[in-house]
């Protein structure tokens, strides 16, 4: 029997074997500290690489460019616009992926019909989707959000599907003998039981959404981080590209943290390490 939320003092860790047990007991600050160490280390490596004559801009140059871009409001504006697109695409993609993944996992026929296409589109680079998206949806926000939506959807649906397939049959039976029908089982058993899988899907989907942003902003974007980076690429303006990359990275990281928090709340019931 596992005891996760034990109140044992963090001090009495005990020898070698104590480590896996005491994970929860560790002072809260340590992981954050290590995060910080890790980030600083990364920056140091970057600096060394830049200093050693590689054609990458130094952190100082990038910070300087970021300041400039912040000063004239470009960066804020770009971030807002891109964040909006990613959020819209990601939220839609996830919202569609969960029921579709459920239907695929639950009804063999749906699975047989949908799966080939999901698999097919997952292997197709977003760049290749763009022409079609434009033809069907014009050049405004819709196709951009659609491309991001697709990326999020495709990452998340496979995960949800797997989650549904993996739900312990005993729990489904328990719900069925209590009179619950398919819809109730979906909402009240399958969804909570496959939350860990769905969250993996969402986290991976979030990454894909951001990674697709650049492709999406190929479509007649007037602003946005992806647009700014492409533009900078034409001008070989590496500091701006780095500002874009880092902004995307940080925003992605922050959104991921939010998901993680949600996960912690949603899967507190789990007996896990």
């Amino acid at each position: 029997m596992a005891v996760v939320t034990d109140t044992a003092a963090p001090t009495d860790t005990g020898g070698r074997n104590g480590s896996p047990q005491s994970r929860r007991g560790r002072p809260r600050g340590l992981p954050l500290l290590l995060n910080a160490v890790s980030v600083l280390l990364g920056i140091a490596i970057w600096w060394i690489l830049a200093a050693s004559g590689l054609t990458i801009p130094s952190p100082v140059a990038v910070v300087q460019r970021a300041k400039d871009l912040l000063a004239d409001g470009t960066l804020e504006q770009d971030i807002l616009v891109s964040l909006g697109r990613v959020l819209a695409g990601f939220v839609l993609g996830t919202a569609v992926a969960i029921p579709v993944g459920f239907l695929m996992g639950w009804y063999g026929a749906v699975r047989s019909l949908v799966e080939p296409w999901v698999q097919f589109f997952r292997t197709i680079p977003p760049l290749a989707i763009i022409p079609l998206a434009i033809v069907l949806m014009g050049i405004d926000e819709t196709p951009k959000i659609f491309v991001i939506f697709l990326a999020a959807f495709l990452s998340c649906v496979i995960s949800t599907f797997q989650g549904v397939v993996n739900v312990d049959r005993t729990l489904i039976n328990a719900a069925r003998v209590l009179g619950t029908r398919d819809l109730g089982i979906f909402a009240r058993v399958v969804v909570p039981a496959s939350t860990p899988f769905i969250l993996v899907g969402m986290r991976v989907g979030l990454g894909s959404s951001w990674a697709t942003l650049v492709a999406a902003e190929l479509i007649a974007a007037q602003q946005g981080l992806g647009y700014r980076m492409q533009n900078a690429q034409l001008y070989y303006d590496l500091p701006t590209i780095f500002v874009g990359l880092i902004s995307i990275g940080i925003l992605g990281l922050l959104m991921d943290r939010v998901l993680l928090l949600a996960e912690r709340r949603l899967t507190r019931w789990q007996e896990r390490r």
Partner: protein
Amino acid sequence: LLSACGKDDSSSSGGSGGGKTEDVKFGYIGDYNGTSLLAIADDQKLWAKHGLNATTRVFTNGPLQIQALGTGDLDFGYIGPGAMWLPASGQAKVVAINTLGNADRVIAQPGITSIEQLKGKSVAVPEGTSGDMILTLALKKAGLTKQDLKVVPMDASVIVSSFSSKKIDGAGFWYPAIATIKKQVPDLVELAKNDDFSSEVSFPTAFVAGNKVVAEQQSKTQKTIAVLRDAMQFRTENMDKSIELTAKMLKIPAEQVKADAANVKVLSVQELDTMTKDGTINKWLTGMGDYFVGAGKLKSQVDPSTYYTGDLFTAGAK
């Protein structure tokens, strides 16, 4: 595809032949401009003739090649006019001018008959390319600026679909892509073309070399220029054959290459020598420089002689 040209040489002259054979790594882009000379050099065994052993690598754009030149992964490469600012900003040297691009157009949906009518309309442009350039020039001529239109920056592939599905009113674009659009919108209007501006700006394509190669490997540079000159000569004399060879090297239908070549103004070696000497080419490059400064890619005008090694090119004339 790959380095067919290099291979046969390496076996024949890999060092056994007594004469010193040098290895050269050459990048190119898979269109008529970028490929034709290499296809000829390969077919006519020009590399071996000049004691070179060439490996060719195909790229999809110029900037990547410039980067590879910088890291020493390539010795020579080919760029279009849109990337000319890279050598201008000191990242590489132009060792030879190749052709003049003649494929750029400002196009519009049927019903629009003049640049002025584009006012307020959405016009797509692949930023920083020759399509961008021709639009800028056309607007300037009509006394307009980009602010007068709704300019939408777009990737080239995106323009085809957007224009065909009439999501945009106009575009600064080029052949053969326009030919694809024409299949959908047969009566599209061409509002401006390169020839309209031949007096002000030309759109040269060029061969570039890494700064180090030019500075430290003179014999290799000379030999390569010699190969290019021989191939140019052959190209001017055998246009059809050059198209055929290009198609063979790229493994694409000859008609496609032919359509592509139709929008290229091929320059003969003699013309190039003359124009280098009389400063025409420097004038072109200065014109390009003006454009790049205006577009913000260059901070200030750069003297073309700092990056176009015209003397090396003409020295091959002996």
